[in-house]
């Protein structure tokens, strides 16, 4: 690839985003024009920085926060906005044309190919989430849109969705709680032209993991913090340029730390699991790793809210699980109508048809729970309860749907000629792994 002038690279990235139909239809051109100005002035360069120590790319005097949704929601409403419908439509097409067909290979390779992650990124998902002042095009929080996106991608493969959206989750966390310097350093990259692998590391190995009582610790140290502990089921573990690592801090409780992979010589261990393999899961081990003071997201005086972080991550996982459950329903529906036994389609039997009906019922219930949690977050209402309920239903009903998807295909469901066994393995992970923060 020829070496590009930094300003040229930035303009090139923004031009590509400006050309997205979703941006034009939404009238976001104006916001982008301002972004172009900032981006050009800073001259940031996406893509080639992963191997370097990160530094601020734009000028931010204060953190760029996104306000809660401005439109008042007076009425109960189950309809998607134009923006959400367009994202869903664009992702649906990508899933049908490319992603679903690549899911088996990604599962086997324990990684989603970079080209596919780039194609998903090209839809503008992250740039539409990052504030204008920080190199993106967002003007308010949009957890519902992110949940719709997660759901649409989850239909291809839950693990693939976790990989594709891990950087979005990181961008959302930095937008919500990062300092100006942290935002200026990482957000322009996450919203840049090239897919920037980054992931949250919350879950820890061993039984009885509790996100509110972490074994991983960050002790104050003369040069900042000393990080000690293990993280597991981290998406994009091998390729991430940096991680957001959750660690228990004395007196402060759980906090997130930005840990750059190369500058700290982090050597992730591949962590293949029952499912979610396309996420490229890995384990991180920190042994008294000294982090600079500014590695703590938002700093010690910042307004970091761990409960919100966990709840928004739960919504992200539940949403992606909804998509995976939709894949099950879409797959078993024609199958049971075509598969014959005793001289007629098995779908003619109530014992079979009712299982399909229950998949449809529980799927829609789970979808509405997830939407409600996301919508409360968007409107600035308390949402930890709703997120927890969505996560619980994703664990219970998601798995029920997963296992019945295999059951409905019988022996054919158990072999790898059909995707239902992969979805079964993935859906168990919905109760265990961490989703992208919406």
């Amino acid at each position, binding site marked *: 690839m020829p070496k590009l002038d930094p300003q040229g690279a930035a303009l090139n990235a923004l031009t590509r985003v400006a050309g997205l139909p979703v941006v034009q239809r939404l009238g976001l051109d104006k916001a982008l024009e301002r972004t172009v100005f900032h981006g050009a002035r800073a001259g940031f360069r996406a893509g080639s920085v992963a191997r370097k120590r990160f530094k601020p790319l734009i000028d931010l005097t204060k953190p760029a926060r996104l306000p809660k*949704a401005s*439109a008042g*929601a*007076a*009425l*109960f*409403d*189950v*309809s*998607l*906005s134009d923006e*959400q419908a367009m994202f869903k439509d664009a992702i649906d097409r990508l899933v049908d044309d490319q992603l679903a067909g690549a899911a088996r290979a990604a599962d086997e390779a324990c990684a989603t190919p970079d080209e596919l992650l780039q194609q998903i990124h090209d839809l503008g998902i992250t740039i539409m989430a990052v504030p204008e002042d920080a190199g993106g095009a967002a003007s308010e929080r949009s957890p*519902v849109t992110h949940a719709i996106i997660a759901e649409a991608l989850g239909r291809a493969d839950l693990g693939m969705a976790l990989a594709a959206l891990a950087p979005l989750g990181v961008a959302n966390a930095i937008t919500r709680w990062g300092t100006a310097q942290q935002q200026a350093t990482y957000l322009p990259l996450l919203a840049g032209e090239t897919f920037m692998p980054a992931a949250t590391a919350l879950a820890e190995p061993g039984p*009885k*993991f*509790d*996100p*509110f009582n972490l074994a991983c610790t960050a002790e104050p140290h003369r040069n900042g913090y000393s990080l000690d502990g293990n993280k597991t089921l981290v998406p994009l573990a091998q390729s991430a340029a940096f991680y957001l690592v959750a660690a228990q801090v004395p007196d402060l409780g759980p906090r997130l730390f930005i840990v750059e992979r190369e500058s700290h010589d982090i050597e992730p261990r591949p962590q293949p699991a029952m499912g979610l393999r396309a996420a490229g899961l890995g384990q991180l081990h920190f042994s008294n790793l000294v982090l600079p003071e500014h590695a703590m997201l938002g700093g010690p005086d910042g307004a970091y809210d761990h*409960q919100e972080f*966990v*709840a928004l991550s739960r919504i992200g996982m539940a949403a992606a699980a909804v998509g995976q459950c939709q894949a099950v*329903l879409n797959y078993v*529906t024609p199958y*049971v*109508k075509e598969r014959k036994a005793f001289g007629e*389609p098995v*779908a*003619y039997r*109530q014992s079979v*048809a*009712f299982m*399909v*009906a*229950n998949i*449809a*019922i*529980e799927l*829609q*219930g*789970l979808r*509405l*729970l997830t*939407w*409600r949690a*996301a*919508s*409360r977050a968007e*409107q600035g*209402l308390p949402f*930890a*309860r*709703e997120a*927890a*309920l*969505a996560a*619980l*239903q994703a664990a*219970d*009903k998601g798995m029920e749907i997963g296992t019945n998807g295999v059951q409905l295909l019988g022996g054919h469901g158990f072999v790898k000629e059909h995707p239902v066994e992969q979805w079964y393995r993935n859906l168990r992970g919905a109760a265990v792994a961490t989703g992208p923060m919406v």
Partner: protein
Amino acid sequence: MINLETPKKFKAIVHSAQQAAENVFRPISRKYDLAEHAYPKELDVFAAAMDGMNAGDKANAAGAGKLSQAAKAGDGVRNGANMQSVLGLEALCWGDVGLALSLPRNGLGNAAIAAVANDEQLERFDGKWAAMAITEPGCGSDSAAIQATAKKDGDHYVLNGEKIYVTSGKRADLVVVWASLDRKVGRAAIKSFVVEWGTPGMELVRLDHKLGIRASDTAHIVLSDCRVPAENLLGSPEVDTKKGFGGVMQTFDNTRPVVAAMAVGVARAALERTRELLDEPGDYDRPRWQQNAAAAELLALEADWEAARLLTLQAAWMADNSQPNSKEASMAKAKAGRVANAVTLRCVELVGTAGYCEDELLEKWARDSKILDIFEGTQQIQQLVVARRVLELSSSELK
């Protein structure tokens, strides 16, 4: 814009319903559970007050008589009578399902009239309490197999047959009776007829003794050569084999979300009371398996309950917004019916001896909830409706 919160415009009516549930229903809940078939006279005053509220706000009036598929009216999202009724009934049934079913002038017959009556009939039956008579000793969910007959005789129909499980069948002013104009034709010949109490030929056989909702009277009625005016037939008198069951079944698309809401209400009562009684009520943030077993179970039940509640609201919202909702209405009823039954039964178990004794209402709710997974279409019928829609199979393919 996705928003699944209770709309602000209905906050007041939900509050009123909750107040009524707490202060009108709850104090007499056990009384009429024990005194089965006694008329809950306390409800007359309350029903009059409710009529007054509705009269003051015709556009947003709620109740069984206001349920119907909204006509398309311009763009924009609507939250109308279906949603309001669902929200109101949920709150009332948190108080007592049997008493909510006994509310004068809010019978299922009123919903049937609202769904298919013409303007003249709407006016003539306005303010009357109408029960619904479908089930017979030999037919329940298979309502196409109805044996009751209606024979045209001059400007009257002559009804003959036997009807059971007629909710508020004795207390209502009118009974909407399903009968066949021609039993050879099948479902297309089934019509509904409004029969006023006092019409010669309609007799009350008995009131049933039941597992739950004992405050609600459940009548067994016999019609023998009962003559009703021809203008009491609801809908078209023509036997159109192409249209089939459409007319009468339409009622269910609007009433199933309401019955689902009743289930949501009684389940909420059980969840709230159980949470009060348990010393460790559970924590939404921490993983459930780090909590005690009862708390973990309660969290799972609440998640199921919330899903049922949202499915119910969605089905009502679709009716308010002129979207066909047969599938969603049945999804809501299936989920809410089974969740309410499971939740109330589990809550008795979680609270243990105290939950099982009559000192608490938990045991009553666990009895009341069973009917909600049966009437207005059993669990299995709802699954059949959903399965046929999802799989796009006809009733001859998926029997």
